[in-house]
């Protein structure tokens, strides 16, 4: 490998993490008053903002309307200042459209859409700073926003990426590790039931190693779950204290 050593002999990665360690996660719910639900999350240097509107009446063409469940409408975008080089098109390019579809698939699996026939749920996610694991950060942000909006879900959806470098599976890849071009895998998991909402892999990986990488990714997802659950509980605790008397009634 030219120059950059992604995994040192002592087993440390470029940013000083161990192989299975996550980046620091900080999150906040209810950041906007206007939206039904909103959340902000930082995973290391990757920062994302998610807002949820709905369920509400279908806007735009009526033909999208489903009579037995609600439509989940997602939009993924990256701020023009989020990457090293300034982006020309914040959304609407090929990569963003693909990401939009992935998000839609993930949340259609998790939200109990059959409870809201003929309606629409909008999930808008924006990456404010991109440092690897964009999809995963977006899923985590959107999960918090959906919970904040009070929309029923089967379970949290937690996502994490994993890679495979020098015979070791690495959890939660950063931009440098992604750019090295090794195999990478993005996994969105419903952690309580161990169901997979989305699984995507780039480049080649030997079949024998797949299981180990999957295990690393799902372990990482469960670690993410622990952090997100903590955030939600603190938020809930704070709100119930403020609301005070009514909850006792």
């Amino acid at each position, binding site marked *: 490998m030219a120059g950059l050593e992604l995994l040192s002999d002592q087993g440390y990665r470029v940013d000083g993490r161990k192989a299975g360690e996550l980046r620091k996660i900080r999150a906040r719910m209810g950041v906007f008053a206007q939206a039904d639900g909103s959340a902000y999350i930082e995973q290391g240097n990757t920062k994302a903002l998610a807002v949820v509107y709905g369920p509400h009446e279908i806007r735009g063409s009526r033909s999208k309307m489903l009579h037995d469940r609600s439509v989940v409408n997602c939009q993924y975008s990256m701020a023009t200042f989020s990457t090293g080089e300034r982006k020309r098109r914040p959304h609407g390019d090929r990569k963003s459209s693909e990401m939009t579809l992935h998000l839609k698939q993930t949340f259609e699996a998790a939200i109990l859409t059959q409870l809201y026939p003929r309606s629409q749920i909008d999930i808008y996610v924006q990456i404010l700073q991109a440092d690897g694991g964009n999809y995963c950060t977006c899923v985590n942000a959107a999960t918090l926003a959906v919970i904040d909006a009070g929309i029923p879900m089967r379970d949290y959806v937690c996502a994490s990426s994993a890679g495979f470098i020098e015979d070791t599976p690495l959890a939660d890849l950063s931009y440098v590790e992604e750019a090295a071009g090794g195999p990478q895998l993005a996994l969105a998991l419903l952690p309580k039931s161990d169901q997979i909402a989305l699984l995507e892999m780039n480049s080649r990986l030997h079949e024998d190693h797949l299981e180990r990488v999957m295990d690393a990714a799902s372990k990482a997802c469960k670690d993410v779950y622990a952090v997100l659950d903590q955030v*939600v509980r603190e938020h809930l605790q704070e709100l119930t204290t403020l609301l005070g008397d009514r909850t006792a009634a």
Partner: protein
Amino acid sequence: MAVEVRLPAAQKRVSEELGTGSGLHLVTPGDTITTDTGFMRGHGTYTEDDKLVASVAGVVERVNKLICVRALKARYNGEVGDIVVGRITEVQQKRWKVDTNSRLDSVLILSAVNLPGGELRRRSAKDELAMRDYLQEGDLISAEVQAVYSDGALSLHTRSLKYGKLGQGVLVRVSPSLIKRRKTHFHNLPCGASIILANNGFIWLCATPKEMEEEAGGFITNLEPVALSDREVISRLRNCILALASQKMLLYDTSVLYCYEASLAHQIKELLKVEVIEDIVMETRQRLLEQEG
């Protein structure tokens, strides 16, 4: 020109001030509430292999055998008899579509409104054509929920002189869960303004009308200029309501009035500052607690 510079103060954690919540059962999506099969499944839950699992983050409520989870923030869930304020989004055949912050747009059927010229008037084809003269897209109305359809949509009516089109005033939107259910949601406050605290979280503020206009069925709006003093009262009330809502205080006539009185020490524009908001809301909270005994 004087420039005011303020530093962003870290918001105090309220739970430290008020003490932590008392033994409430809080759950997050995916949490198992009970594995006992003797319970009934309510809102905010679902069953999975004989387990009752929460689907929203909130507080568990048990009524006999029924278990529900109440989310702390959600869209408006209408009930028959609720007062709502809404905005017309569409004019259709014999009905208006109204946005009431609900899951689906509510409907206001032509036969459920008071048309000019008395209670008992037949709705003719002419009325149908003139629907846009009564209410058009973007108009605000107050109404009562008449029925809830099976898909959760609401049917409204305005068959009383209390309800109808809203003219000049200010609309404030808050979370529906902050509105306290009272016997009446229309108030003429002693400070000289009228307020409609609608159950769907839309709050309408306007100057108290001098005399009730009749015959019009509430479709004619008064376009006389509103006096500056009235506008100041309305602005102050608006800021007070936003202050109460930002601190998640329940909204009803007494709390709004107490907050208004607490705010009189400050200028209207100062009521948007975080420190002032904390002050006046704390004062209101104290006064309400004292009054409760």
